[in-house]
C-alpha cells in the first residue's frame, strides 16, 4: 500500500519532467520559420494531459493525507521481533561453531598426525 503511493509519486515526478520537456519542444518549434502543426498539436495534447494528471494525482494524495494524518508521531517498532530473530540466528551460529569444533576434534582423533 505504501509502496503504491510512493510509486505513484515517482510517476508524478516523471510527468513533471514530461511537462517541462513538452513546453520546451513547443517553444522550440515556434522559434522555427516553418512550424509543424501536427507536431505542435501532439506536444500540446501531451502537455495538457500531463498537467491534468499531475494535478489530479497530487490533489488525491493531499486529500488522502488530510484524512489519514494525525500529527502525532508513530510509535510502532519492529525491535522486539528483530531482537528475537537476532537471538535465534545467534543460537544457530553458536550451534554451528560448536559442531565445527566437535567435527574438528573427531577428525583429529581419527587421523592423528605423526
Amino acid at each position, binding site marked *: 500500500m505504501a509502496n503504491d503511493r510512493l510509486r505513484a509519486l515517482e510517476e508524478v*515526478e516523471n510527468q513533471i519532467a514530461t511537462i517541462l520537456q513538452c513546453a520546451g519542444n513547443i517553444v522550440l518549434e515556434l522559434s522555427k520559420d516553418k512550424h509543424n502543426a501536427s507536431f505542435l498539436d501532439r506536444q500540446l495534447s501531451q502537455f495538457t494531459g500531463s498537467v491534468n494528471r499531475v494535478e489530479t494525482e*497530487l490533489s488525491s494524495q493531499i486529500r488522502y493525507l488530510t484524512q*489519514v*494524518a494525525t500529527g502525532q508521531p508513530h510509535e510502532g*517498532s*519492529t525491535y522486539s521481533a528483530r531482537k*528475537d530473530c537476532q537471538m535465534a540466528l545467534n543460537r544457530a551460529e553458536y550451534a554451528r561453531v560448536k559442531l565445527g569444533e566437535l567435527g574438528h576434534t573427531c577428525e583429529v582423533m581419527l587421523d592423528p598426525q605423526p
Partner: protein
Amino acid sequence: MANQRALPQSKESLLQNYNKRLKDDIRSILDNLTEIIKTAKVEEETQVSRATQAEQDHYEMHVRAANIVRAGESLMKLVSDLKQFLILNDFPSVNEAISLQNQQLRSLQEECDKKLTSLRDEIAIDLYELEEEYYSSSYSQWDSTDLPLCEAYRRRDSWASPDRDTTSGSAQGGGEETDGQASQETSPKQHLNGHGTTASADMP
C-alpha cells in the same frame, strides 16, 4: 520562500500549504506557456519599432521560460515533501509495513528454532547410541554416580515417575527434554572432571 515553508506547524495548515503550492505552480506553468505562445504571434502594428518590440518579446519569453522551470522545480520539491509526509504520517501503511516485517522476522526465527530443535533431536539420538557403545565397552571409566544418557533413559523407563525428584538432577535423564539436555551438559563435565581430558579416557 524557505521561511514560508518552515512556518506551518499543524497538520492542517501544512496540507493547506501543499494545496496552495500545487495550485500556484500549475497555474504558473499554464499561464506562462500561454503568454509565451501569445507573444510568439507576429504583430503587424507595434507601438515601438520592430527591433525594440523583438527585444522586449525576447526578454519576456526568457523570463516566462524561467518561471516555467521554477514552477516545475517547485512542483518537484512539493512531491518530495509529500513523499516525506507520507512516509512519516501515513499510519495505515506504516502499520502494515511494521506487521509485515514482524511477520517475516518471526517466521525466520521459528524456522531457525525448528531446525535447531530437529538438529538437537538427531544429535540426542546419535549421542544415545554413542554413549551406549562407549559405556558398554572396556574403555569406559564411569562409576554409578555418573549416569550416561542411555542408562538414565533405561532406568527412567523402569522407575515410577515421582522417584526422580529424590535423586540428583544430573543423574536423572528425566522425562523433560531440558533434563535430558542438563544431563548431556553435566555428564561430559563430570567425565571431564573425573577423568581429565578425553584422551585420558581412551587409555586402557
